[in-house]
Structure formats: structure tokens, C-alpha cells
């Protein structure tokens, strides 16, 4: 009796082992397939990255030369024939020059942006409190004698690329300084809170704010929610901040209302799995 039972048990065991072996084989095949797919995707990504690099090189080199000629020869015209030019002709030439310079600035920003995407991340422990103090000190020029009340709350350290994290704070604080220019009693608060086990850094201002209906456009490259004559800028600052945050696995979001200021919140680490 026990022998029969033992035989049945052994037979069952053999069946299970055979079945598992078969499953393992299937898994191996699936794995090899997905490996091949991963290799393909990686190759595609490398090709795309090389293409992006040659594209930005073209922007850097080939597009600047004609622009320099437009500016240079307009200037030469003013220098050599300025005395003979009607005031209106001189004004029109001035507009040509202003626009070529603006295009130069846009190209520089675009290049800076694409360089940022290619730059490798070097993470280390950073002290946002020190970063924020430095950003405010160095940015004192941009506030140009304005009376801005900065309030710096607790800013716990974290793991991030120091240069890139500095850039995020600089873009957000610069943004707050710019958009409080028309607000009496400008106040900019920089602090943090704990949320879902992550540190959320916050930059809040009481400036001009914006309509949340347009919030989706806020982080796009060259997207602007304000007219050039109201606030200058090329519309890359927040796009840069968002890309840096995403490259760290973090998130960035905003809450605002017209004339009620804006609050930018971001994390520099991914959600806990």
C-alpha cells in the first residue's frame, strides 16, 4: 500500500518537474525575445540621441552664421551710411538688428536645453538650504533694488545632481522674482513639506500668477503665458526645470490664480514603489 502511494507520489513529482521544465523553457524563450526587443529599443534610442546631437550642432554652427551676417551688415549700413539715412530707415534697421539678436538668444536657449538633456546625471547629497541662499545672493542683481521679502523655511538635504538641482531652484526663484515685479510688497517663500514619504520642495510667490486653464502649457519649450511687453523671457526656464526634475524621477506641479501668485512644488526623487 505504502509502495503504491510512494510510486504515485514519485510519478506526480516527475509530472510537476516536467511541467516546470517546460514552463522554464517557455520563459527562457520569452526572455530572449524581450532581450532582443530591448536591444533594438536601445539601438533606436542611441540613434535618436546621435541624431539629436548632430541636429543641435547644426543649430549651433550653421544657423548662427547667417544671423551674424544679418546683424553685422545692418550694423555696417548704419555705420557707413548712418548720416544719409532717414530716421525711419534707421528705425527699420534697428528692428532688423533687434530681431536677429532675439533669434540668437532663442537659439542659445534651445541649445542649452538640448545640452541639458544629454548631460549625464551625477548624483550626490545636496543641501538645498545652501543652494537657495546662494541663488538668492547671486540673483540679487535681477531683483534690481526691489524690496522683496524672502522667507526660507526648512529645506532637508536629498540625493540629486548639485548643478542641475541648483538650476531648478534658480529657475523657480528667478521666475518668482520676475512675476512679482508688479506686485506691491513682493514676498517669495521657499520651503518644503513631507508627502507620501518624499520631500516636496515649494517655491511660492504673491505675484501676477496665471490662469490654471493654461497650466498645461506652462512647462512647454518656448511657451509663454504673458506678453513680451509685460514680462520678458524666452519661455525655456520652466521647461528646463521640468526636464531636470523628470530626469531625477521626480515630479513638478503648480497651483496659481491670476493676481494671486503661484506655487511651484517639486520632488527630486521617484515615488516609493
Amino acid at each position, binding site marked *: 500500500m505504502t509502495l503504491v502511494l510512494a510510486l504515485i507520489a514519485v510519478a506526480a513529482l516527475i509530472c510537476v518537474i516536467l511541467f516546470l521544465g517546460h514552463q522554464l523553457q517557455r520563459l527562457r524563450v520569452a526572455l530572449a525575445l524581450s532581450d532582443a526587443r530591448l536591444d533594438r529599443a536601445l539601438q533606436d534610442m542611441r540613434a535618436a540621441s546621435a541624431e539629436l546631437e548632430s541636429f543641435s550642432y547644426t543649430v549651433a*554652427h550653421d544657423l548662427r*552664421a547667417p*544671423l*551674424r*551676417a544679418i546683424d*553685422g551688415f545692418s550694423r555696417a549700413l548704419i555705420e557707413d551710411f548712418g548720416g544719409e539715412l532717414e530716421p525711419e530707415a534707421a528705425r527699420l534697421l534697428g528692428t532688423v*538688428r533687434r530681431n536677429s*539678436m532675439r*533669434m540668437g538668444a532663442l537659439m542659445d536657449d534651445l541649445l542649452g536645453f538640448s545640452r541639458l538633456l544629454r548631460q549625464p546625471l551625477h548624483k550626490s547629497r545636496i543641501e538645498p538650504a545652501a543652494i537657495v541662499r546662494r541663488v538668492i545672493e547671486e540673483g540679487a542683481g535681477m531683483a534690481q533694488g526691489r524690496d522683496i521679502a524672502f522667507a526660507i523655511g526648512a529645506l532637508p538635504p536629498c540625493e540629486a545632481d548639485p548643478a542641475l538641482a541648483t538650476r531648478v531652484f534658480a529657475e523657480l526663484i528667478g521666475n518668482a522674482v520676475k512675476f512679482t515685479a508688479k506686485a506691491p510688497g513682493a514676498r517669495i517663500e521657499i520651503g518644503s513639506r513631507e508627502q507620501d514619504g518624499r520631500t516636496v520642495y515649494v517655491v511660492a510667490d504673491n505675484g501676477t500668477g496665471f490662469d490654471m486653464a493654461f497650466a498645461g502649457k506652462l512647462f512647454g519649450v518656448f511657451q509663454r503665458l504673458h506678453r513680451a511687453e509685460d514680462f520678458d523671457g524666452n519661455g525655456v526656464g520652466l521647461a528646463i526645470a521640468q526636464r531636470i526634475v523628470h530626469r531625477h524621477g521626480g515630479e513638478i506641479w503648480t497651483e496659481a490664480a491670476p493676481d494671486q501668485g503661484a506655487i511651484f512644488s517639486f520632488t527630486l526623487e521617484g515615488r516609493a514603489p
Partner: protein
Amino acid sequence: MNPVEIMLVEDNPDDVELTVRALRKSNFTNPIRVLRDGAEALDYLFGIGTDGKPNMNAAPVVLLLDLKLPKVNGAEVLQKVKNDPRTRTIPVVVLTSSREERDLHETYKLGANSYIVKPVDFEQFNRAVNQIGMYWLLINQQPAG
């Protein structure tokens, strides 16, 4: 003695005109020799003259070099100039539109003496050319002979 000469290797005629103009506006009256591509530049520096001897007496006081050139590119010209004992002491100023770090590292590694990004703004461009002239034509002292 050959007159103090500025050698400008640049394929874009508009950039040539603007650079020459900027040098003249800064009152540098030195003869300027313009070469339109890398092959022409190498021929000018290392080619054989009418007397059957190498053209070495034509060595300029400063060489202004664009990086992106037809035929032989600027980096290759730079490499040849810096690897030949006869031309090694010629200061080479790389004048380029490229702000890419890669180009900057590469050209300094090859022995460039300066790296100037040509600004879009003509006034800045004038200032850059003026400073190049001031430094390399007036201030910098080179070994004799």
C-alpha cells in the same frame, strides 16, 4: 622680414568681410591673408613656393581659424600646424560659431592658443576681434626667428 600678417582661414565670405572690417575698424592695418578652406591653408603654410623652397617665410603672426571648413577641416589644419616644428609657434585662434564643449576640448587638446565663439551681435563680434588683435598682435611676445 615678412610684414606682420594675419592669416584668416574662413570659408564664409560674409564672415570674412565682417572679420576684416572689424580688424580695420580697430585700426589693425596688418596685411590679412584670407584662405577659403583647409586645403588652401595647408598649401599656403607648407606648400612649395616659386623658388622651389617651402613657403615657410609666409608664417603669419597669428592664424585665425574657423573649425568647419570644406575639404580639410579646421581641426586637421590645427593638428598639422601644431605638429610641425616649423609652424608650432604660430598662435592659433579658433574662431567658431560652435559653443559645443566637445569642440572646445578637442581644439585645446590639439594645441589651440585661444577659442573664441563668434557672437551673433556685431558689436560683441567687433569687441572680440579687437581683443584678439590687441593680444596677439600687440601684447604677445613671440620667440624671434
